[in-house]
């Protein structure tokens, strides 16, 4: 990042336009709502992290000694519930997406600003139910809530936790709806679909999944609650139900939910790679359509979570085949990102470090997905630490790297301040090292046969577990450092110019931080996405030259 001396910040902007708690809690400004979300998801990220710390401490030794088995089971369940439903799913769309979708398309706000605020309140209410469930002792079913354990046997707060997930789902639906309508109707003049940044394409695809998938988890939780309260017999075999049906319903949402978590991160990475190397994304249309293909195919692969569930062998084969099909668009993205770097002007600033880290983790996470989609191999590694490692590479290595990369990249725009580049690079490195040390040994543990969700384990698994716990403590420190320097920068960081990276994109063509209505004048877009330099001046001549 270039430190530019003596930047004069705009006199009024969205942060100082109005003051007071009420001006925040009743705001309809998408940028302020994004910050409300930022505070909420950050809180839940560290809450989920606390549970993870408990898990890693317990697993330092083979025998159960740090907590009781019951407590351990509650810890991994709450870790999963909090991280997935309260952090990973909302993180990028609700924070970065909320802040950036209108800015990137040259709009003054989202299409439904009040619904946007409502979605944050719904999220908060749902999250409160989850917090209450934790305070009342938590829940021990695993975040997957499999029946009949959850419906008949568990004595945890299944209903309360389920209610939390159910309610939070509506905030997801409303955010998706808002994005789709906004992207369709509020693009600036001249901003055609193929001039949109890939971040927008990714969020469009994500929104489709949010709208189409989330109602299914809502229905599933409702059925689970009915079963638990009234024993209606949908999942209970003694009453003629089928416990495996729950798994079908659950994964019909929860597999696409993986794409709700990772597609926005892919959108962020496309922005980072393009802008930090000042190159138009190689194969722009392929990357854009890959997002839609992933969203569509993502709905057809849920059964790959159920290869050993006693579902039909032939169903297993169909789901395996389709899982390989959905892997291709992801691979295409990686190839195009790599090719984008060719003949670029590559910066090593923090956001790019996160992008590099993302690609590395995503390769390992994605390739191990091929292991798990291979039926014969999945039978062995299913429900072992191999799976745990795989999805952490995708969700933590992918989504959180994308989230942190994006947060750093747009931080000057969001706050109008620059953070310490040296500290930021250092933290990125610590996170990269800590992450690998935490999760890579888990692949080995899984192949050796250590089942997941084990409170105590045979002694031969200890060395790798200790490595994993050591890595987790490094990772934890890595996540705390940015909190410190980012908060510090909000008060003491140098003022950011409108475009500190020399990036393309409408969000960099307004002041940092932007005014409440985003742009002084409605921008008119006559150039392609990722035109570097000053495209508004020389767009026409460029297009002529290109023929």
């Amino acid at each position, binding site marked *: 990042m270039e430190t530019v001396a003596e930047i004069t910040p705009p006199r009024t902007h969205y942060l100082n336009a109005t003051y007071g708690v009420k001006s925040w809690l009743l705001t309809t400004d998408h940028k302020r709502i994004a910050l409300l979300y930022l505070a909420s998801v950050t809180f839940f990220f560290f809450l989920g992290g606390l549970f993870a710390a408990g898990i890693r401490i317990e697993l330092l030794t083979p025998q159960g000694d740090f907590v009781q*088995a019951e407590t351990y089971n509650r810890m991994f369940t709450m870790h999963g519930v909090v991280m997935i439903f309260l952090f990973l799913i909302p993180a990028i769309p609700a924070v970065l997406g909320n802040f950036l979708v209108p800015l990137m398309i040259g709009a003054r706000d989202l299409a439904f600003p009040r619904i946007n605020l409502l979605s944050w309140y719904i999220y908060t209410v749902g999250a409160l139910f989850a917090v209450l469930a934790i305070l009342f002792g938590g829940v021990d079913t695993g975040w997957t809530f499999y029946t009949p354990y959850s419906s008949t046997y568990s004595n945890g707060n299944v209903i309360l936790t389920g209610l939390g997930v159910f309610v939070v789902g509506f905030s997801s639906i409303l955010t998706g709806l808002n994005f789709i309508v906004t992207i369709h109707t509020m693009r600036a003049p001249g901003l055609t679909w193929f001039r949109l940044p890939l971040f927008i394409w990714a969020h469009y695809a994500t929104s489709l999944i949010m709208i189409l998938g989330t109602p299914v988890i809502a229905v599933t939780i409702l059925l689970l609650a009915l079963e638990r309260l009234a024993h209606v017999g949908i999942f209970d*075999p003694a009453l003629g139900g089928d416990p495996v049906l729950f798994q079908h319903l659950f994964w019909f949402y929860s597999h696409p939910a993986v794409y709700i978590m990772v597609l926005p991160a892919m959108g962020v990475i496309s922005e980072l790679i393009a802008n930090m190397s000042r190159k138009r994304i190689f194969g722009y249309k392929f990357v854009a359509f890959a997002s839609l293909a992933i969203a569509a195919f993502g709905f057809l692969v849920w059964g790959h979570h159920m290869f050993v569930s006693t579902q039909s062998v032939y169903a297993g084969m169909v789901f395996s085949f389709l899982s390989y099909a959905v892997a291709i668009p992801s691979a*295409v993205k990686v190839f195009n990102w790599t090719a984008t770097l060719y003949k670029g002007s*590559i910066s090593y600033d923090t956001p790019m470090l996160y992008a590099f880290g993302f690609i590395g983790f995503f390769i390992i996470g994605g390739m191990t997905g091929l292991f798990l989609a291979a039926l*014969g191999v999945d039978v062995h590694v299913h429900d072992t630490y191999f799976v745990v490692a795989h999805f952490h590479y995708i969700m933590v290595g992918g989504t959180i790297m994308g989230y942190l990369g994006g947060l750093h990249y747009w931080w000057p725009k969001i706050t109008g301040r620059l953070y310490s580049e040296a500290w930021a690079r250092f933290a990125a490195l610590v996170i990269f090292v800590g992450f690998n040390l935490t999760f890579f040994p888990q692949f080995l543990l899984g192949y050796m*046969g250590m*089942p997941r969700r084990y409170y105590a*384990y045979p002694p031969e698994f200890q060395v790798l577990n200790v490595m994993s716990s050591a890595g987790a403590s490094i990772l934890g420190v890595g996540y705390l450092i940015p909190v410190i320097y980012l908060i510090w920068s909000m008060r003491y960081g140098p003022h950011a110019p409108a475009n500190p990276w020399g990036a393309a994109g409408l969000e960099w063509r307004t002041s940092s931080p932007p005014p409440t209505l985003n742009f002084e004048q409605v921008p008119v877009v006559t150039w392609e996405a990722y035109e570097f330099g000053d495209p508004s001046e020389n767009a026409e001549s460029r297009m002529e030259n290109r023929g």
Partner: protein
Amino acid sequence: MQVSMPFSPDQASSYSGQVDSLFAFLCVLTILFGTVITLLIIYFAIKYRRRHKDEIPGQVEGSMKLEVLWSVIPFLIAMGIFVWGANIYYTMYHAPSEALDIYVVAKQWMWKFQHLDGQREINELHVPLGRKVKITMTTEDVIHSFYVPAFRIKLDVVPGKYSTVWFEATKPGRYHLFCAEYCGTGHSRMIGWVEVMEASEYQAWLAGGAAEGSLASSGEKLFQQFACITCHRSDGQGRGPVLQGLFGKEVPLQNGGKVIADESYIRESILSPRAKVVAGFQPIMPTFQGQVSEEQLLQIVAYIKSIGAKAPGEAGVSNPNAPAPAMKPPSQ
């Protein structure tokens, strides 16, 4: 090609080598792909590093040729992996008919095994070396999962139905048995050992136990105790179908459909007798749900299986057109 991977558990079944080979192939592929991309990124990042702050590089448009190439080649490789993996999977869940039957009832938090000769074990399973073994499983409560890493097999055990998996142990020894599906507080205690024994040792072990007689004979006792025999008479004069020679046969149903008389069908017919009524019979059998335990059910299944094998030539349903005897209250 059979390879052994570092960090792989013992290779103790006929699947171990196959699974490890595919796993090794995938590892090589991952390393290859990961190395190529990583080296390219490092090379580009150094060669095209930003030289001055206002540098704007020339633009390169995409390339249709490359896009097709890097979609089609990965797809073809993926299809190869798909077929390879599906092949192993298909074998695992299709037990050969000559396999030795072992019955499993899982519950929170233990594994209960019943052998054909009547031996019962908890959290210990003795199997012979070099013989195909078919495991038929069910659970008394929640879903569990039968996992023997050294055999590379795993299958969920689901309440309300039987699931089956088979293996052939290839190396004597003692191997971990884990429950792989989270099943509550004691999940990580739901572990045991599979002991693979040489054939002679196994015979000696078989001879050592089984005070109660064979599994089928226990089933036969239950068959009389629950008075099944009053309707399911072997002479074809009973109110229910003849069960001799039934096992494994196709049975015509009242509703016009057909069903193979396998373990699951027998179980279902005892617990929900009206679900699939045999053609020509009245739906008069009462349910035995709640009266008979999962273990007893398996014993009855073993009995019906044993009388099926004794009379292989006989039809499953001897006289479907015989008039049903006058309605009497069930003798239960």
